[in-house]
């Protein structure tokens, strides 16, 4: 375990435990205000824990008990580099000097630092921009330089705080690939609300909500079998939690959801989760009779484009339907609709 963090910050309502094995990447997935940035701040040394301990390679970076700091390593001695959504390149330095900043600050000679910077600029494919000032770069270029600058500082731990959030959609795939390649052996924590970041960059995902880690596991597993509402929503899935009745999941609203249970032998009353894709949902104005379906009565909250379809959100679920259907049913916010899902489309599993 090279990086561990167990800390509370009561003033921000945060109480998290994280660990990242050597060379691995952990994604902190969660909505805005969930406590992701607080966790990164604790690791970077811009925030003090009220209680807890943060270690890197067995060295205690920060320790506190009941508001009293017992150990404190200042940010510049932590070997923890932070990359924010804004590239924050030093505007008065050239691109090369920006990348050479870390090595220089750590005592490398001007030449040694320059050589290291050139190597990193090569790696991100921007060697030709070495003499430019940051003001002359595009947003995507600037963020790549910021990544090179962070990595050139040879951090034991790299922190990425929403690294794609400020960029145009059309440059993010390329940047994600660059990161994927560069982060191979780098111990990294990436905070994001974008499931693609988690999917492509991270080995493991910790879902953070309300200041706590609500779910933790290998990326693929979390995204295919989400147990928390946020993980499900970012995974693009409908998720309903309840208890097992023997042939369905009884939810808090009283509905019973039937589906395909892949884990036989679950006790009646045990917590269960039902998951289904929005595309599996059909919408109607009146109760359809006939084939065995799950039905959910609800009120339309929003209608947004989603590829060729429209995603209709009700207070209970999301449905992807055709524009024609939306027009025929006159689906506007406030209208009552009934969503139906075939039991075969619903995945039910314990948790």
């Amino acid at each position, binding site marked *: 375990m090279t990086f561990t963090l167990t800390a509370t910050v009561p003033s921000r309502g945060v109480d998290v435990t994280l660990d990242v094995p050597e060379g691995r990447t952990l994604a902190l997935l969660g909505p805005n205000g969930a406590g992701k940035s607080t966790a990164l701040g604790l690791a*970077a*040394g*811009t925030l003090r824990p009220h209680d807890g301990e943060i270690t890197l390679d067995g060295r205690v970076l920060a320790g506190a008990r009941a508001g009293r700091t017992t150990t404190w390593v*200042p*940010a*510049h*001695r*932590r*070997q*923890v*580099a*932070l990359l*924010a959504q804004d590239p*924050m390149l*030093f*505007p*008065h330095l050239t691109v090369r000097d920006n990348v050479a*900043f*870390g090595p*220089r*600050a*750590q005592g490398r000679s001007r030449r040694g630092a320059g050589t290291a910077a050139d190597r990193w600029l090569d790696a991100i494919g921007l060697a030709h921009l070495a003499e*430019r*000032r940051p*003001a*002359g770069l595009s947003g995507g270029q600037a963020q790549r330089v910021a990544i090179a*600058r*962070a990595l050139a*500082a040879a*951090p034991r731990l790299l*922190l990425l705080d929403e690294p794609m959030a400020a960029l145009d959609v059309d440059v993010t795939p390329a940047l994600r690939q660059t990161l994927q390649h560069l982060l191979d052996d780098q111990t990294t924590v990436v905070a994001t609300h974008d499931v693609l970041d988690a999917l492509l960059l991270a080995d493991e995902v910790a879902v953070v909500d309300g200041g706590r880690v609500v779910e933790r596991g290998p990326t693929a597993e979390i995204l295919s079998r989400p147990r928390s509402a946020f993980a499900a929503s970012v995974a693009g899935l409908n998720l309903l939690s309840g208890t097992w009745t023997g042939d369905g999941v009884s939810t808090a609203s009283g509905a019973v959801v039937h589906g395909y249970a892949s884990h036989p032998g679950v006790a009646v009353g045990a917590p269960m989760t039902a998951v289904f894709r929005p595309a599996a949902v059909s919408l109607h104005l009146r109760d359809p009779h006939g084939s065995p379906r799950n039905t959910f009565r609800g009120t339309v909250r929003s209608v947004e484009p989603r590829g060729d379809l429209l995603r209709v959100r009700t207070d209970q679920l999301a449905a992807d339907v055709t524009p024609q259907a939306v027009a025929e049913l006159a689906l506007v916010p406030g209208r009552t609709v009934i969503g139906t899902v075939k039991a075969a489309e619903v995945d039910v599993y314990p948790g």
Partner: protein
Amino acid sequence: MSTGRTTIAHDPAAAPTGLPRWTYVPAVVGGLFVVLPLLALGTRVPWTGYWTLVTSEPARAALVLSLQTAATSTALCLVLGIPLALVLARGRFPGRDLLRSLVLVPLVLPPVVGGIALLSTFGRRGLLGESIEVLGLQVAFSTTAVVLAQTFVALPFLVVSLEGALRTAGSRYDVVAASLGAGPTTVLRRVTLPLVWPGLVSGTVLAFARALGEFGATLTFAGSLQGVTRTLPLEIYLQRETDPDAAVALSLLLVAIAVVVIAVTHRRAAP
């Protein structure tokens, strides 16, 4: 440097919007109010024999003393003012706002009052004066007193400029630099100060100009002796008694120095 962003400001095709036309009227009046007296001063200058007037022995002594003391005061302002501005902008301690207000007081204080305050501190019967006297040092009537007086009135100009620039710049870049392994002193030298460079330069120019023009506190605290404490403003004031022509000639010299200093540094500081 020619990047896309910096050339936009000079784009001849740019059509600026916004300023209401009437603002030009008071703006022109305001501009004239400052420029006209300077031009009027020029009309009074005895151009024939100007060179003789400004190169007389007392005038040369005053000019040299003014430049030396103003330069020394400015250096002192930088040494004391940069840390002071940093502490006021970034430090966290009780009474910071009060300290900020107090440091700015010399800005609004009549210079004579500043001189009396300095006398009360460094004078023979002043707060520190006796201990200084014990050390065998004499501040009053010395060039040191001139430098102290100038520093006292000029320091707030540097601190205000720099502190404002520091607040505007914020500390986000400092956090990034620290996370790259730079210690606090390296961050200050390579990131914080370069980012507020224009503010630092303009603060330094203001401090130098204020030191150069200092009169009241110097006269009250340091006295007036040729080559020791009689700076250019004091020489002008004295010459006015007997030789108004010389006073005008020296005034023009002072204005010229101020204009040159501001012009040169302004160009240097511009991106």
